[in-house]
């Protein structure tokens, strides 16, 4: 306000008389893209803790992280793909199919886990790659391609299992490593996997040239092409990564439950998109962050656990979750509009 009128030697004085100028730390805070989801999460934690002090304990947080781990790992892949401007609705089916494939390999075919895990992950990646190839070759929207492959892989998972969950009822190192083992009290090893995946993809997106290509691919495509970004190759790689991570998430659930059912991961695709969007990823492509998505997944898990702990009427959870998703996205959009300079 009127800042421009003051010039030259009056600068020192201006700082003094114009408190309206935002301090540096405030500007920096607002520049954090994950601010919206962070506010939402903190508010929720405060509310839940006020209503039920037992909410704010390590045990509860361990449980929330474990629940967020499977969703989070899949959501990181979905976020990468969404930033590049594409969707994958088939991640839930890939999750089930890859999990079932791994379970079959180690039970029915007694394959060594050192072979079975990479083989099943490779297959999950191939499922993702196939989505990409179909989408790019035929130019149909990935929303539709993956809607179709979603049904196809779910159906195949049902068909090869006959609908039965595949269970390992004895102690298994493989399952312990994947997700069964407790690291600290209720904190499971799956949460550690989430951290590793998040760190790797955070680095890939933020610190490498490839990360810039991903943003460019989802942003202004023509501009990206002009700059020499191999748009199609970036998309194919991201489809493949989304597939690999969806499969990996399935492995975590298999490890967690000692069983893999072909029906699990049913709601995963939409929940992964929800986690990404709560975390500030744009549905239009071109923007998004990995940390935001992880926080989004943690927010969703916190809501479920928190509502139970405060004794909310059980059948209202899903409705409440829906309201929070919409509110969080509104908060994100408003922050984005108000502080447009932080782009």
């Amino acid at each position, binding site marked *: 306000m009127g800042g421009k009128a003051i010039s030259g030697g009056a600068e020192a004085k201006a700082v003094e008389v114009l408190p309206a100028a935002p301090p540096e730390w405030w500007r920096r805070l607002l520049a954090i893209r994950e601010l919206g989801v962070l506010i939402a999460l903190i508010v929720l934690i405060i509310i839940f803790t006020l209503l039920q002090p037992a909410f704010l304990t390590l045990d509860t947080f361990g*449980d929330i992280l474990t629940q967020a781990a499977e969703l989070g790992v899949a959501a990181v892949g979905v976020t990468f793909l969404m930033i590049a401007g594409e969707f994958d609705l088939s991640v839930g089916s890939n999750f089930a199919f890859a999990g079932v494939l791994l379970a079959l390999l180690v039970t029915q075919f007694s394959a060594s886990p050192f072979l079975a895990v990479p083989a099943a992950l490779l297959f999950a990646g191939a499922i993702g790659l196939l989505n990409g190839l179909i989408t790019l070759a035929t130019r149909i929207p990935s929303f539709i391609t993956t809607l179709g492959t979603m049904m196809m892989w779910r159906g195949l998972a049902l068909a090869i299992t006959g*609908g039965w969950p595949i269970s390992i*009822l004895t102690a298994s190192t493989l399952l312990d490593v994947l997700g069964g083992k407790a690291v600290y009290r209720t904190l499971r090893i799956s949460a550690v996997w989430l951290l590793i995946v998040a760190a790797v993809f955070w680095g890939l997106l933020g610190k490498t040239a490839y990360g810039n290509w991903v943003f460019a691919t989802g942003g202004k495509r023509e501009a990206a092409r002009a700059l020499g970004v191999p748009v199609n190759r970036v998309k194919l790689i991201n489809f493949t990564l989304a597939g690999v991570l969806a499969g990996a998430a399935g492995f975590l659930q298999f490890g967690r*439950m000692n*069983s893999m059912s072909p*029906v699990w991961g049913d709601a995963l695709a939409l929940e992964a998109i929800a986690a990404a969007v709560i975390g500030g990823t744009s549905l239009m492509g071109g923007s998004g962050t990995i940390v935001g998505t992880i926080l989004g997944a943690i927010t969703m898990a916190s809501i479920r656990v928190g509502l139970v702990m405060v*004794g909310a009427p059980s*059948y209202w959870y899903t409705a409440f979750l829906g309201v929070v998703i919409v509110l969080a996205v509104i908060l994100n959009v408003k922050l984005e509009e108000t502080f447009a300079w932080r782009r």
Partner: protein
Amino acid sequence: MKKGILGALLTIALVATLSYAVRLPAAPQPLSFFVIAHTGPGDPFWAVVNKGVGDAGKMLGVKAVFQGPPSRDIPAQVNMARAAISARAAGIAISVSDPPAIGQVIRDARAKGIPVVAINVQEPADYKGQPIPYMAYIGMNEYEAGKNVARYLLPRIPQGAKVLIAMHEPGHVGLEARARGIREVLTAERGAKVETLDTTQDPTKSLSTMRAFLKANPDTKALFTLGPLGAIPAIKMIREDKLAGKIAMASFDMDATTIQAIKEGLVEATVDQQQYLQGFISVVQLYLHAKYKLAPTDYNTGRGLVTKETAATVESLVKQGYR
């Protein structure tokens, strides 16, 4: 000239196709029976029904098809039933998962002369809508089974105790009836505080919601799950948190994990509703009706509980997919 020949050929082809199509329905077709459920063979429970249907079809030498959506989906079930009507089924067995929606389909089928029996879930006793004209019910009485299993656990439940019911498909009339049976017995006999929790079908979510509940309500004395999708995570939790002996658990239906847990003493009992019979007997009854006009009769497949004593015997049959 060429055009004329082409036109003539096309006309012949068209007439031939049409006459064939018109004649088609009159040709004798093998009897086909459809068993249509609100959930498909993806649920371990329904996989057994699927086997019963298939075995009956093979034995009788008829076409017997089991259909159901991947997860509970009433509109999809209705569509499958409509397709079965269009396919001129010789008989339909259907789960009355949603009385108004399924009731209408059953009325339409009967109006077209197709015999219909209900399996697995029947019209609720207090249903106020138009009566649903299925000819017989082949399945378990969910409400009675809930009361039965609750009575079995009574010795483990003190006066005024808190009890948790894990509901993995809210709104499912069969599961709600099971829960109602449990709730009524426990409130009447023990003055228990019974809470029903929406745990979802996702096992990880289910486990952490149950654990959160127990944390907020550490005085909970008993846990009821309503099927394997609830039991798998609940058993996992009992193992991890060493709750055996502290919380009495009972469940419905059987799968390898539940049976194993009963053998180990982590779970007291599970209700066996012998769902193989729901698939097998419904096809047999519909076949007998189609062949000899024998009227389908009610058939109670619910039969007591599987406990530590009987668990080993049924285990091998579970593995073979019959129980």
